[in-house]
């Protein structure tokens, strides 16, 4: 199929490798080595070995989770109609507004550059404050992308499911609070859409 052409593109592969082993990777590497040396000098070889063995065990458990989670995240990223989402969310008022916004926030693919651009579009199109707060709170706490890519590998799939379920009603709670707070809201009018790049997941 034509759409798999990128696999034979050396420039694309170079970019993937470059983003995989960028400055922040080496920073984390240096931190890992530094803490390893610190651990060895403070706690001795036994503790260091235990730590490495535990890591190996966790990494072994981690890989299947990462593969499943990343597959889901990539599918959502391709399948979600980002352009239609703003219209869908902005049109709702009452309790329905925050509920739709919560759902939209949870499935908005990509990092903060996509979610905050959408939030800015919503704000400038006059969506009410409950909808705005519900959307961004849902994206922050329930964002599928974050839960799949970070909660699942680091904390386990069960923990991720529990956190998702526990947080599910909370953006609506925040929206109801937002509607009752006696604050004036002045939104900036310019809407600067930042292109969503690959580094997005790190913000």
């Amino acid at each position, binding site marked *: 199929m034509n759409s798999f052409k990128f*696999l034979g593109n050396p420039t694309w592969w170079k970019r*993937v490798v470059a*983003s995989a082993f960028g400055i*922040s990777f080496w920073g984390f590497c240096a931190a890992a080595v530094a803490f390893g040396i610190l651990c060895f000098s*403070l706690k001795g070889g036994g503790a260091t070995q235990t730590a490495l063995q535990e890591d190996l065990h966790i990494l072994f458990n981690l890989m299947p989770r990462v593969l499943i989670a990343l597959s889901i995240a990539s599918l959502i990223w391709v399948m979600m109609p980002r352009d239609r989402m703003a219209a869908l969310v902005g049109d709702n008022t009452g309790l329905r507004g925050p509920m739709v916004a919560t759902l939209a926030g949870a499935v908005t693919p990509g990092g903060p550059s996509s979610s905050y651009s959408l939030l800015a579009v919503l704000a400038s199109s006059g969506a009410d404050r409950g909808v705005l707060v519900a959307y961004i709170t849902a994206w922050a706490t329930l964002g599928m992308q974050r839960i799949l890519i970070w909660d699942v590998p680091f904390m386990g799939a069960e923990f991720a*499911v529990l956190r998702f379920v*526990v947080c599910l009603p909370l953006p609506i709670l925040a929206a109801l*609070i937002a509607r009752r707070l006696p604050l004036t809201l002045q939104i900036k009018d310019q809407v600067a859409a930042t292109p969503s790049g*690959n580094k997005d*997941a790190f913000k």
Partner: protein
Amino acid sequence: MSIGILVLLVFLVALVTTAIMQQRDFGLVLQRFIEQFGVLVPRMLVALIAAGFIAQIIPKEAIAGLLGEEVGLLALPVAAAAGLVVPAGPVIAFAIAAVFAKSGASTPALITFITSWSIFAAHRILIYEIPLLGISFLRLRLLSAVLVPLVAGLIATMVGLLSSFGGTDFLQ
């Protein structure tokens, strides 16, 4: 296999089926997958290794004494405050969460910590929220959502009374 993995697998199968029925471009999916894998996995691995060493160095009792099961509900405000002061991206935040989990932090405390970090992440506020929406929205959002991490921890505590679902024992 854990229930969590099963839930994800069912979800994955549903998505793939939908994608096939809608005749989606799987080339794009694979491209996104490889790009994300490249960015995430190497950092994830070194962060976990660093977290493993840190967990050996720091006194487990201290963490458990602040965030452990025995501390009960008092662990929640501590966890929320800890989440508030992590001004960094997910690699560092989740590495810290893994260290907490290894040191015996309770599940509700971990949920409060991660939720608090995800709501208050300072770097996101500075880079996106203030430039795009302004201070007045930031104020409204923070005041509206300030209770969310604590309520999440409370609900998790109640769930914990009924079942041990969602525990992070495998990390300890």
